């Protein structure tokens, strides 16, 4: 035995260690994979030996190979062996390997529970620290549940090093095992005032992470944080606290008012840019939430903007970037203060750093007004000429179009100008996708703005002229699509239709869809031209044109593209018929009553109108259609039998016995999981534009089994869509004439209409959420979050009201039941409020004002509701600014 050991030791000396491996890989650059596979064999050999140091050497090498992308999960058991070594050196290797390769779903983890527990309670602080660090990377629900008490005990360790790590570890435990939060919270709160600054900072870190997702549960900690903020000098921690306040203020406006002063003091005093920046950010957040009742509100905004200007003017690109980022936040609520710095932002457009230019572009979007739009676009056009790199050019183009078209061309006063800009843009070089954007925009403007049509059409005719007379493609082909379509559709606006027709007839090889549009619009234009000649009796000219068109269409007939073939053959036949008719007329045999051109034009009568994006939603549900009714009878199983069997039926069709219980990959879903998956599906449905939302009634029937059978829901789409399409058309036609009369006010009116209509139809949750976003108000927003929020998000489970009596005083279940009750009540209440709001909105157009009032009322209510005992104390704390100097 002893001999064996000695032999092992000697052999070990000549094993490759990590350094050898790295060196070997570097020396075998040509056949690295081969070398590594050879090493893998060696490693497997070493792992078979009894000696732990040999194993640890092998594991160290594996950890390196893991970084290079090799899967080492097969060695999991060996890693655990090395972790269990009594030597710190070996243990370290094992724990490192574990933290790199294990994850919370590793099955091997169940083997580690006791070992890690032993390690956590080790006398040596570095051993338990090691275990904590490693565990933080792969903690699973089971581990969290089993070890939460051990980690909780470590919070009161005498060693700050352990306390610090345990505090951070608790957060990971909470994520996996939310039940641990309530009992652990008092201790965690204590750690906020730990004598060791490291522990304190860790605790702040954890609470910030918790509060970021569920801020309203942590409002009661505001006084503690306030005290920390005014006393601490640890910048890192201050940043965290200030960020946290940024998340809390939307829920408690009074907190915001209290914060303004110390924060402005900090802004004045601090020399750390990171802290300054976060202060500004939070002040902005505060100012956004506080209504303008604040006395020195304007001064604070001014201060922020000034400081940001300093950041933006700094030579450090990072500060510049962040400054612009923060500016864009101010822009949303206080556009005027930002507009004052237009010069600076335009200057940033010329920065050599693309990220900064893009940020500046974002800002421009909000800074335009009717007055300065032309000026800004002109500058952007200049940049466009200078800019190298298509990404930035494309972004510039998109931004120009976005700026001009926002709110249905709210800021465009002169559409002739805008069309000219578009035409200019069309003659520049962009990435392949951009032509489409310009084309679509041109068509949109012309359809929406009737007055601009003569001008736009003449511009388009010119474009076509240029296109046909020059050989090189200076104009983007996608724009030609728009040009051809516009000239055909609004042929009556053309000054020289025949010239345009001839220009269009000269088209050369074009992409399929564009060529098709050309052919189609040639016929439209031809019909128009023909009428002119027919009225004057110049039949010869018509025949000439017919021949020309036939020749050209004959060419297109040979096209390889189906669409083009079809279009050209149809058109060809039409032209031939026309020709025959005309010949008849010329021969005097025609009837002479109906003009041929009139017949032809009849093919293209009717106006095309823009379709509102929400049109589909506004379709009222036809009478007698019950959305909740089953289309097919639900499978009996799902109702009568247990979930277990449903899963069996779904996933295991044939080899039931073989697959059954032992090897099943999918674990049996618990109630909780089913609920979660149901919510996940709902969330997905809400975000899926193609998914027809069900009515409110349906949504509330949460506990029904309906959602368990996806087939039925998918089927619902079909009949609805068919009905919907026709109805929406009708609706649009009705609205069309109204829409066109007044262009600029249209958007606003339209919006109101649509929202009220939606309310009539008792629309789905998406709309409601949107409105909530427009009126960000603490309780409502987070409540709706809790009902339709992210399901994957582990933080959902952490939404625990910590102000309720702690767990050791009340039985857990009772508390939870209470919470449930509370939630239900709240959601009901909210619903009531919402409905009320909707009703009110329906009655008057100036919904905004009243909404504001309501908001205020609500704020008032929420103020009353909040337990104030903890908070009042904070009011007394003064904030001497000198402390920060």
């Amino acid at each position, binding site marked *: 035995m002893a001999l064996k050991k000695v032999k092992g030791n000697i052999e070990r000396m000549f094993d490759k260690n*990590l*350094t050898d491996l790295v060196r070997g890989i570097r020396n075998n650059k040509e056949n690295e994979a081969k070398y590594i596979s050879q090493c893998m064999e060696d490693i497997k050999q070493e792992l078979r030996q009894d000696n732990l140091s040999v194993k640890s050497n092998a594991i160290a090498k594996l*950890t390196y190979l893991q970084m290079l992308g090799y*899967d*080492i999960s097969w060695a999991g058991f060996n890693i655990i062996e090395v972790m269990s070594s009594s030597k710190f050196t070996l243990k370290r290797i094992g724990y*490192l390997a574990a933290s790199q390769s294990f994850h919370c779903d590793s099955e091997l983890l169940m083997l580690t529970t006791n070992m890690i527990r032993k390690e956590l309670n080790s006398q040596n602080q570095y051993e338990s620290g090691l275990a904590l660090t490693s565990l933080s990377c792969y903690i699973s629900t089971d581990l969290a549940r089993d070890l939460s008490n051990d980690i909780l005990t470590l919070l009161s360790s005498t060693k700050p*090093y352990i306390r610090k790590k345990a505090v951070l570890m608790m957060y990971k435990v909470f994520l996996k095992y939310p039940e641990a939060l309530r009992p652990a919270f008092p201790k965690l709160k204590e750690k906020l005032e730990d004598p060791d600054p*490291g522990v304190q900072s860790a605790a702040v870190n954890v609470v910030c992470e918790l509060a970021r997702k569920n801020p309203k549960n942590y409002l009661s900690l505001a006084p503690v944080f306030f005290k920390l903020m005014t006393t601490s000098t640890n910048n890192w921690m201050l940043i965290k606290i200030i960020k946290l306040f940024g998340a809390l203020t939307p829920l408690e406006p009074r907190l915001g008012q209290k914060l303004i002063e110390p924060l402005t003091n900090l802004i004045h005093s601090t020399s750390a840019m*990171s802290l300054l920046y976060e202060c500004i950010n939070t002040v902005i957040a505060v100012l956004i939430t506080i209504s303008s009742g604040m006395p020195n509100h304007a001064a604070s905004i001014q201060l922020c903007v000034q400081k940001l200007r300093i950041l933006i003017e700094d030579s450090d690109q990072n500060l510049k970037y962040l400054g612009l980022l923060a500016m864009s936040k101010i822009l949303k609520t206080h556009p005027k203060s930002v507009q004052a710095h237009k010069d600076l932002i335009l200057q940033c457009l010329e920065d050599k*750093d693309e990220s900064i230019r893009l940020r500046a572009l974002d800002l421009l979007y909000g800074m335009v007004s009717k007055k300065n739009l032309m000026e800004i676009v002109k500058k952007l056009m200049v940049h466009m000429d200078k800019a190298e790199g298509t990404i930035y050019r494309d972004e510039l183009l998109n931004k120009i179009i976005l700026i001009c078209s926002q709110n249905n061309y709210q800021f465009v006063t002169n559409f002739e100008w805008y069309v000219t800009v578009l035409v200019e843009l069309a003659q520049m070089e962009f990435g392949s996708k951009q032509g489409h954007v310009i084309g679509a925009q041109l068509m949109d403007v012309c359809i929406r703005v009737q007055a601009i049509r003569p001008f736009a059409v003449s511009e388009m005719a010119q474009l076509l002229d240029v296109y046909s007379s020059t050989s090189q493609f200076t104009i983007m082909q996608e724009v030609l699509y728009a040009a051809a379509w516009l000239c055909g559709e609004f042929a009556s606006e053309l000054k020289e239709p025949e010239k345009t027709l001839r220009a269009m007839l000269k088209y050369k090889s074009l992409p399929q869809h564009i060529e098709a549009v050309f052919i189609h619009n040639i016929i439209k234009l031809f019909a128009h031209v023909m009428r002119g000649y027919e009225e004057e009796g110049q039949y010869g000219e018509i025949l000439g044109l017919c021949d020309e068109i036939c020749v050209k269409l004959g060419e297109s007939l040979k096209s390889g593209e189906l669409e083009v073939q079809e279009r050209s053959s149809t058109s060809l036949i039409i032209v031939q018929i026309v020709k025959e008719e005309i010949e008849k007329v010329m021969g005097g045999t025609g009837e002479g009553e109906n003009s041929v051109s009139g017949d032809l034009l009849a093919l293209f009568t009717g106006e095309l109108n823009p379709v509102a994006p929400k049109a589909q939603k506004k379709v009222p549900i036809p009478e007698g259609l019950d959305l909740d009714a089953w289309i097919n009878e639900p499978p009996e199983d799902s109702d009568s039998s247990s979930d277990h069997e449903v899963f069996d039926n779904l996933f295991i069709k044939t080899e039931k016995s073989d697959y059954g219980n032992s090897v099943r990959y999918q674990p049996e879903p618990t109630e909780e999981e089913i609920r979660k998956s149901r919510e996940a599906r709902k969330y997905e449905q809400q975000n899926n534009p193609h998914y027809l939302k069900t009515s409110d009634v349906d949504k509330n029937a949460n506990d029904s089994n309906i959602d368990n059978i996806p087939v039925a829901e998918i089927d619902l789409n079909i009949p609805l869509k068919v009905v919907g399409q026709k109805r929406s058309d009708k609706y649009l036609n009705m609205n069309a004439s109204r829409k066109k009369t007044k262009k600029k006010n249209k958007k606003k009116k339209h919006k109101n209409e649509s929202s009220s209509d939606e309310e009539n139809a008792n629309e789905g949750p998406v709309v409601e959420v949107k409105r909530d976003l427009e009126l960000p108000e603490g309780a409502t927003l987070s409540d709706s979050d809790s009902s339709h929020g992210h399901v994957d998000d582990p933080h959902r489970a952490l939404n625990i009201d910590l102000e309720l009596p702690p767990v050791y005083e009340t039985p857990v279940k009772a508390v939870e039941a209470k919470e449930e009750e509370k939630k239900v009540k709240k959601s009901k209440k909210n619903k009531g409020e919402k409905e009320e709001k909707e009703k009110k909105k329906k009655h008057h157009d100036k919904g905004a004002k009243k909404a504001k009032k309501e908001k205020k009322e609500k704020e008032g209510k929420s103020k009353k509701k909040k337990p104030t005992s903890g908070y009042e104390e904070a009011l007394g704390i003064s904030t001497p600014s000198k402390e920060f100097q």
Partner: protein
Amino acid sequence: MIKAILVFNNHGKPRLSKFYQYFPEDMQQQIIKETFQLVSKRDDNVCNFLEGGSLIGGSDYKLIYRHYATLYFVFCVDSSESELGILDLIQVFVETLDKCFENVCELDLIFHVDKVHYILNELVMGGMVLETNMTEILTRIEDQNKLEKQEAGIAAAPARAVSAVKNMNIPQQIKDIKLPDLPQAIKDLKF
């Protein structure tokens, strides 16, 4: 939260990868590759923030990086971290490495990736910042190194001797020994 910490060189070779959220190995490699492509095409005089790559994170995540000589240090963080704070943290990390390795260079990271991990573990734990005070970090690292040394003691002597011999890299040295170029020498001989 920090989602990942990556260190790679100017050619995109990974020198350290630490993911605080699980990704399978091949995905990790793709992320490293994508991050490298995003970061490497940026000039040195542009800002150090990047909107997150498509593979890691999403809109809430940012890449914050610093470029030192041949190495990129990239942190992928969400919006709860302060951008400038993370930049400082990277600086602390690098300075700590510099103290521990005495003038750190890429080779140190290549051959002692385990040590780099141990150092990083004293700064960041499970995606959260553990300590930013460099002296505190250094004491902790020192203490643990001492612990290792104590354990090694005499028992490790033979192994160390062997590795010393290995480090001499005899085959390479034999190759490197320059014998006079005989044919040339012969030619040079003048009869």
